[in-house]
């Protein structure tokens, strides 16, 4: 009996969660405004209750998928009795309704985590933070219940079987990509809530940034992994071998990432130096707003994209209203409550402060560039100036030089001191790195590809510059540690003593190093795969072979195969290379029975330095098959670098500093100053 009414139970759970979200939104904020502890104390139990009921709702939808309950419209549209069980579970977020449910579940999960880990926050701060998150949650729960209810039934004519999950989404990438991405998107709501709480409470000192930093880093790390997974998924699943298409939906995830990257850095400045205060609040608002904008762009159907969800104008209007109210209100509060006083702490034109300012300006310019490129077709259309689409040429032309500039300053940043940095000293410490980077970047492409390529040289130059300047910094810090000991009269001659300074380096510092190196690795990947990519479209019949990039591809077999919910034409291709063991690859052309969709299943041979990529095309008139064979050098580095960036963000959070933090008073922290040149404590993250 209970099983038969599971969808209804899920629906009720959603309604209860909404009721709690509304209470969480109103009562604690009111309590904080009128200083009533009891009202403020409402925030936590409501956050927990909301999370509990959302978990129940989510589980009941999952159960409907697992039990093949095709009377639920969402299940009937996105599942099939033949679908393997793991895809049934991930199909829950395979389409619009379920993915919004996942969005809200994750949002309330973040609220829950904040209420668990922020017990030592001042009570009014916690009440305000959870109150703001309650507002966001209420908005999205209303959105689900009014326009996108995943529990809607198809009664009385229950379909005998489901329409199946979109074959593109029947893949490991789909299982992990959306949850990661949403963790990132939604995670930025925490820093947004902190910023709003600081504005509402009128306490716009450095304290809120210190509390918000770990949350921001974690959200940013999730988003980084999410974007990388999306790119990886597109690479092997869409069958074109591209890894970034400047598709509106990809851009929608890149926008909050760029703003979030700027935010991570400006939070550091505000925390350490008490400057950039208004700017940091504004960035926090922007970052989350861009997450919401991304949600709007993907789900309203205003832009066309490979990801487009089923369109329904009422949904678009609702999300736009949600976006308008959230961002409009927060920007209005910002305009009213942001402090008028300029922060007094100044800094020289060359200093860590100024370099981070440049970092922020560049990242914001990059964000605006991508934003404009993404919505430009929309603007033109709205102004009646015709329909156009903005493609990779625009983005590449602007994004590449901006990234180059960013990297240039990024090499300087970690070595510069707060307040003022003598240019001569910086030049002395980095001159060697610059020369080595230029020479190696000019020579390496000649050795690897046999010809000079400006793009590869530029990419290598930037990556080497980043890596070498970091190496120099670590080297200097390690040595400085040794001198410290000597001065104290304990000359340490052991080998370990030479690295004495290393021990003093904090995890936050290592987080910065790993994160920055990650970008260097990604840049190498981008440069190499963009310029040394080999692509050949060939036709082959069983028994024939073709040579591409030094590899011999021979089609040895061709057969039809039956999968759980598809039939497939499978080619077996033996790949040989002089002096190496041969191996086989099996590209497929699948036909999904329930949805009637054909799909290309790419055969991949991954390698750290090169991927082989074979996609089966169409059967040609004479029975031959067209094949697309590609060699993708260094393509793995793209995602490896992204993983390193994420790891860097997480490393910085693990730093002791954040666990020690709550015991010290906010006032003390605000006036804490760090003497320049103390090495390890300078780590900006």
């Amino acid at each position, binding site marked *: 009996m209970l099983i038969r009414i599971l969808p209804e139970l899920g629906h009720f759970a959603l309604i209860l969660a909404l009721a709690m979200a509304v209470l969480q939104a109103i009562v604690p904020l009111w309590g904080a405004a009128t200083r009533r502890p009891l009202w403020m104390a409402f925030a936590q139990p409501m956050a927990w209750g909301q999370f509990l009921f959302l978990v129940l709702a989510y589980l009941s939808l999952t159960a409907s998928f697992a039990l093949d309950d095709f009377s639920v419209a969402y299940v009937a549209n996105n599942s099939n009795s033949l679908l393997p069980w793991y895809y049934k579970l991930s199909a829950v977020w395979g389409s619009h309704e379920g993915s919004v449910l996942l969005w809200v579940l994750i949002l309330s999960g973040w609220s829950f985590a904040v209420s668990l880990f922020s017990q030592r926050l001042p009570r009014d701060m916690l009440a305000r933070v959870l109150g703001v998150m309650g507002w966001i949650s209420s908005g999205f729960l209303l959105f689900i219940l009014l326009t996108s209810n995943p529990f809607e039934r198809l009664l009385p004519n229950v379909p005998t079987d489901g*329409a199946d999950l979109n074959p593109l989404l029947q893949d490991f990438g789909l299982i992990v990509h959306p949850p990661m991405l949403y963790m990132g998107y939604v995670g930025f709501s925490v820093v947004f809530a902190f910023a709003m709480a600081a504005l509402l409470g009128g306490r716009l000192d450095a304290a809120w940034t210190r509390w918000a930093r770990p949350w921001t880093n974690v959200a940013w790390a999730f988003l980084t992994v999410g974007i990388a997974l999306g790119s990886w998924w597109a690479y092997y699943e869409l069958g074109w071998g591209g890894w970034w298409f400047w598709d509106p939906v990809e851009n929608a995830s890149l926008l909050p990432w760029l703003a979030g990257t700027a935010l991570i850095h400006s939070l550091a400045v505000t925390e350490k130096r008490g400057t950039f205060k*208004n700017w940091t609040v*504004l960035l926090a*608002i*922007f970052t989350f*707003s861009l997450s919401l904008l991304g949600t*709007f762009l993907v789900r*309203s*159907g*205003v*832009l*066309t994209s490979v990801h487009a969800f089923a*369109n329904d*104008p009422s949904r*678009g*209007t609702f999300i*736009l209203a949600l*976006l*308008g109210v959230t*961002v*409009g209100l927060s*920007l*209005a509060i*910002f*305009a009213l409550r*942001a402090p*008028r006083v300029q922060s007094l702490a100044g800094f020289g034109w060359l200093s860590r402060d100024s370099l981070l300012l440049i970092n922020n300006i560049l990242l914001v310019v990059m964000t605006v560039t991508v934003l404009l490129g993404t*919505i430009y077709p*929309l*603007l033109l*259309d*709205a102004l009646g100036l015709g*329909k156009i*689409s903005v493609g990779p040429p625009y983005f590449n032309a602007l994004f590449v030089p901006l990234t180059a500039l960013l990297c240039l300053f990024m090499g300087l940043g970690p070595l510069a001191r707060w307040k003022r940095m003598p240019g001569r000293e910086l030049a002395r410490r980095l001159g060697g790195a610059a020369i080595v980077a230029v020479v190696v970047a000019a020579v390496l492409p000649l050795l690897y590809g046999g010809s000079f390529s400006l793009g590869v040289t530029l990419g290598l130059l930037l990556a080497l510059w980043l890596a070498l300047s970091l190496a120099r910094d670590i080297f200097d810090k390690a040595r400085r540690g040794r001198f410290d000991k000597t001065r104290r009269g304990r000359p340490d001659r052991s080998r370990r003593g030479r690295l004495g300074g290393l021990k003093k380096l904090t995890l936050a510092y290592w987080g910065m190093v790993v994160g920055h190196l990650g970008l260097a690795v990604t840049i190498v990947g981008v440069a190499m795969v963009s310029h040394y990519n080999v692509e050949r479209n060939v036709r082959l019949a069983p028994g024939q072979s073709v040579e591409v990039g030094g590899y011999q591809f021979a089609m040895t077999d061709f057969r039809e195969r039956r999968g759980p919910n598809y039939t497939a034409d499978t080619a077996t291709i033996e790949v040989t290379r002089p002096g190496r063991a041969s191996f086989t690859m099996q590209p497929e052309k699948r036909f999904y029975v329930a949805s*009637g*969709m*054909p799909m290309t299943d790419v055969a991949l041979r991954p390698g750290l330095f090169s991927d082989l990529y074979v996609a089966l095309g*169409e*059967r*040609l*008139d004479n029975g031959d098959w067209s094949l697309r064979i590609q060699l993708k050098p260094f393509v793995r580095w793209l995602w490896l670098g992204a993983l390193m960036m994420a790891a860097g963000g997480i490393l910085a959070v693990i730093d002791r500093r954040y666990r020690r933090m709550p015991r010290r008073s906010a006032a003390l922290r605000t006036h804490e100053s760090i003497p320049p040149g103390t090495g390890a404590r300078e780590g900006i993250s």
Partner: protein
Amino acid sequence: MRRRLLLLIPLLLFAVLVVFLYRGLAKDPAARDSALLAREFPAFNLATLDDPDRTLDRSLLEGQVTLVNVWGEWCPTCKQEMPQLLALAERGVRLVGVDYKDTRENGLQFLDEFGNPFEVSLFDPDGTLGFDLGVYGAPESFLVDAEGVIRYHHTGYITPQDVEDVILPEVKKWQP
């Protein structure tokens, strides 16, 4: 006070953005720009569905505005689209079908069952024409003008509302 006004700038910029996004919503969300818009219909040489010995090429599309509809027996949405296509044919729109990745037998049976709005249907079992057209799935429709140039691309099925609001106006627009 001046500074306070400066702080309003982000809000104002955002308000402008919202206006544009709202205007964007009002536009037809289903219209996906095909990469092929304003380009010549790709060349083809295909047999017709009912007669394997009769082959047709691009000249078929010259002389009058034609709606080319890509369909298949395997495509459930195509069945739902049939009434709209029949209505279009009744109102004088010339329709040409492309039976996409289908068998001859199934295709003919489909037309028997659901009606035949097409002047002629091309038989495209390997999806070669579909490939050249960049078809993502079925149904998709292409409006081709009298010179054989693609003028409008409709992804997904044509709703009764689309017939009045989109297809007929587009046909009228490109009528020589």
